[in-house]
């Protein structure tokens, strides 16, 4: 099925084949994302960026992706300055925006907001993160990063580290890893573990899932260490937070027994989870991961908005 004209709200909206196609297209987009080649499939197209909560990376990489494809953007970058402050519903704001551009990219603090936007809009809607809910393009760029390092997404051993309970990127990523048949190791403070229902769902999909609270052990024979931020506000006691945050800090000592090809990923921004000494090791791919956001989002925008494929 073609992605042309479709909404992309959850990673579950994409089949394995569609994800593979997007990743292949993203690889081809890299020279265009770097600016060494030029393509303009979105010439004369406008993408409305509806960002109702602060975002640096996601918004800028989407805007860069649109512009690299020859399109242009209209942007709500601050909900406080928009008419929502005057009490306009999200539904009405999106109805209005769908008249201003060929597609809408939305980031919103409430779960389910992107699904609501998709119903309000007669143009395709791409979810750029709704509350603690879905963030499918983050998952796509995470997969692109792993694939670039290992040439495959099958049979990898991936440690998911940090806040696995509330972290919005982790649930979508775990789902995608299960789709591709990679092994998932969960390393988190007990109070921030992956919810049981999510583990059950992954196992139901045939994924091999294990829990390893000891970071050193988890890292030892893994291919990917995916680090997420542990948010201070999840703890009632600050000393508990410090203890937990300190025990999950990635530094040279944690990585000393790791495989030489282990990659360390992080959706950024980091808040002390990864020591700067890791930045210059061959393990660190998080800045490459941040760059790959552009070609991945270009691939998605081109699939949704670019010229329709014949027979697609």
């Amino acid at each position, binding site marked *: 099925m073609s992605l042309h004209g479709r909404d992309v709200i959850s990673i579950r909206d994409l089949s394995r084949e569609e994800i593979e196609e997007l990743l292949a297209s993203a690889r081809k987009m890299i020279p265009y994302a770097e600016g060494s080649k030029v393509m303009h499939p979105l010439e004369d197209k406008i993408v409305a960026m509806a960002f109702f909560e602060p975002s640096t990376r996601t918004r800028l990489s989407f805007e860069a992706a649109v512009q690299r494809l020859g399109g242009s953007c209209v942007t709500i970058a601050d909900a406080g300055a928009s008419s929502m402050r005057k009490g306009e*519903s*999200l*539904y009405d704001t999106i109805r209005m925006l769908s008249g201003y551009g060929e597609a809408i990219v939305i980031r919103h603090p*409430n*779960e*389910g907001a992107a*699904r609501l936007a998709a119903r309000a809009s007669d143009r395709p809607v791409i979810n750029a993160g*709704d*509350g603690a*809910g879905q963030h499918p393009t983050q998952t796509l760029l995470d997969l692109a990063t792993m694939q670039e390092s290992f040439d495959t997404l099958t049979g990898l051993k991936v440690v998911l580290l940090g806040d696995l309970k509330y972290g919005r990127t982790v649930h979508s990523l775990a789902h995608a890893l299960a789709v591709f048949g990679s092994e998932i190791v969960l390393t988190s403070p007990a109070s921030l573990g992956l919810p049981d229902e999510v583990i059950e769902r992954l196992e139901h999909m045939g994924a091999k899932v294990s829990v390893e609270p000891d970071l050193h052990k988890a890292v030892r024979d893994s291919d990917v260490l995916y680090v997420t931020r542990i948010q201070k506000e999840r703890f009632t006691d600050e000393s508990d937070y410090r203890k937990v945050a300190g025990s999950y800090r990635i530094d040279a000592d944690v990585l000393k027994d790791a495989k030489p090809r282990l990659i360390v990923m992080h959706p950024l921004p980091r808040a002390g989870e990864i020591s700067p000494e890791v930045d210059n090791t061959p393990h660190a791919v998080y800045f490459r991961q941040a760059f790959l956001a552009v070609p991945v989002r270009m691939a998605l925008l081109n699939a949704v908005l670019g010229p329709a494929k014949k027979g697609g």
Partner: protein
Amino acid sequence: MVRELKITPIKNGTVIDHIASGLALDVLRIINIQSLDKDSTVSVAIRVRSGKLGWKDIVKVENMELSPRKVNAIALITPQATISIIRDFKVQEKRSVDLPDRIIGVLKCPNPNCITNQPEPVESEFEVTERRPVVLTCSYCERRVESFLNHLA
């Protein structure tokens, strides 16, 4: 022996039978008896012997037919209930309460941060993702819901 009726027959209205024992008051809450005509009699029988269930509750309401939305709400909390429409003392129609694939406007999403709990012109919507036992998934935020009594809209 003189036959004694615990609940008198109704001329026109609805009988909700085979309600799981103890849930009649919750069914009344769904029906919202405040919204009925002032002269409509409502009869409730709690813990009645039943061949099928052992014990059951029954609710009879005069001059009222249930909306599909209320039938769905009843189906969620007591799926084995049956509904009979009575016209002129006769059963016109008797059916079990069937759960549709989507439940719209019946439950409030338990996720306080769900967009359906914000002032938006949108009704709650759940997909029936499992039927035995019933599990619903919010069509917006994907939250799973397994108990329903506390979340009736």
